[in-house]
């Protein structure tokens, strides 16, 4: 597994501290969306369907940092929109690194080489570019609805690796994904030299134009089992092995919607990164006044029944690692052996 030790240690001590404080709900990864504007219009994306005045807006640097401090999570993921289009992205990342936050800058990498050449970023163990890659060239370009994006992303990955940056990939899988092609894709990413890969099934955003290609739960188990059974030794995943086992159907977890709280220009999104049921004015308001019992599979909420997305379940897997010896042992064994 590819999460660096220092990052594992930071997350582990953070989780243990929360548990010692007796906190039942705590954030693990802040999803900070500085803007919704993007240079792609992927059919599966529910984040970019806004009128022009909203797409032109973005958070100020101060608003971003206030949210980071309010939330306190040790990891900050910056999705969007396309964060490399955010005018203050360099300053934002610098400020997060100074705060010793582990930053995942989630980008389609179209602008990455250009930004690196401009010297917008400096390498740091706290900063990882998380490149959106939904498969090999054909599958990726189809997923993002534009030809040539895969090659551009590979160019960005190479440029970042050459300059000494941490680079990971994030892959969303939809119905119809070919497990054998995905295994080839994993080989290809490892050959490029990325530190690790992140996988998640897609979620059927009610506003995403493409509703037919999202995975149902049983299909998710089947796809991930076929993809990840007998993993090759050189494959590295930058995520909890227990979460991957959950996707393969080897574990049953309940959602932890507060694990990845989301902040954007509308406020703190209730209840999670995927559902938009309203906005809270403060992080405290989000945590204290969201009706959490209405979400997750056990709640019976139909929007949650097929969801197995990382933003709801990876925090559950991490919590499982540190809440009992079995979870800890299973994580250590999977990490050391690479077996899932």
């Amino acid at each position, binding site marked *: 597994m590819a999460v660096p030790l220092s990052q594992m240690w930071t997350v582990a001590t953070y989780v243990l501290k929360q548990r010692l404080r007796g906190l039942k709900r705590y954030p693990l990864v802040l999803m900070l969306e500085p803007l919704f504007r993007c240079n792609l*219009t992927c*059919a*599966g994306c529910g984040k970019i*369907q*806004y*009128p022009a*005045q*909203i797409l*032109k*807006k973005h958070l100020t640097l101060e608003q971003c940092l206030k949210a980071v401090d309010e939330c306190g999570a040790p990891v900050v993921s910056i999705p969007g929109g396309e964060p490399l289009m955010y005018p203050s992205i360099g300053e934002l990342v610098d400020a997060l690194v100074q705060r010793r936050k582990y930053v995942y800058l989630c980008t389609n990498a179209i602008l990455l080489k250009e930004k690196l050449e401009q010297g917008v970023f400096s390498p740091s163990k706290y900063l990882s570019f998380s490149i959106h890659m939904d498969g090999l060239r054909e599958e990726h370009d*189809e997923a993002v*609805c534009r030809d040539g994006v895969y090659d551009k992303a590979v160019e960005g990955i190479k440029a970042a690796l050459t300059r000494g940056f941490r680079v990971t990939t994030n892959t969303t899988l939809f119905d119809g994904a070919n497990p054998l092609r995905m295994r080839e894709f994993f080989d290809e990413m490892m050959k490029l030299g990325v530190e690790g890969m992140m996988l998640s099934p897609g979620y059927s955003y*009610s*506003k*995403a*134009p*493409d509703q*037919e*290609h999202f995975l149902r739960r049983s299909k998710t188990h089947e796809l991930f089992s076929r993809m990840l059974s007998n993993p090759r030794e050189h494959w590295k995943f930058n995520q909890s092995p227990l979460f991957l086992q959950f996707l393969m159907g080897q574990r049953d977890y309940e959602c932890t919607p507060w694990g990845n709280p989301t902040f954007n220009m*509308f*406020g703190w999104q209730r209840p999670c990164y995927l559902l938009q049921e*309203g*906005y809270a004015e403060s992080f405290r308001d989000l945590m204290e006044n969201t009706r959490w019992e209405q979400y997750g599979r056990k709640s019976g909420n139909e929007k949650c029944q097929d969801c197995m997305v990382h933003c709801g379940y990876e925090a559950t897997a991490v919590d499982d690692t540190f809440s009992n010896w079995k979870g800890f042992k299973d994580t250590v064994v999977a990490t050391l052996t690479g077996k899932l």
Partner: protein
Amino acid sequence: MTLEGWVPELSESLTLAEVIDLAFDYRGNTTVVKVDGTEAKGYIFNRSSDAPEPFIQMFDVAGNGPIKILYSEIRNIKFTGRDMAAGNSWQAWLERKEREKAEKAARLGTGPA
């Protein structure tokens, strides 16, 4: 199906609260008609129906805001702006790609006779 262009007719079977919920889900600008006869155009991004005084929040068409409007101040909401979630589907992209391939093949004279 899109609500674009819809002007709801409020009745016992279609309440203002239901229209507000639909407007909150709508990915386009709307026109909020207030009880005092004035109108506010923009994107409704939040609604709180269980607050002591239920309200909506919106950014106007110039992006200013957030503007807070109480439910009690609203007479109706018209779905006047373009529905940004409609169209541009994956299917449409695949069809366009197929069309482009066929056009290219026809130009090169390699397409079906």
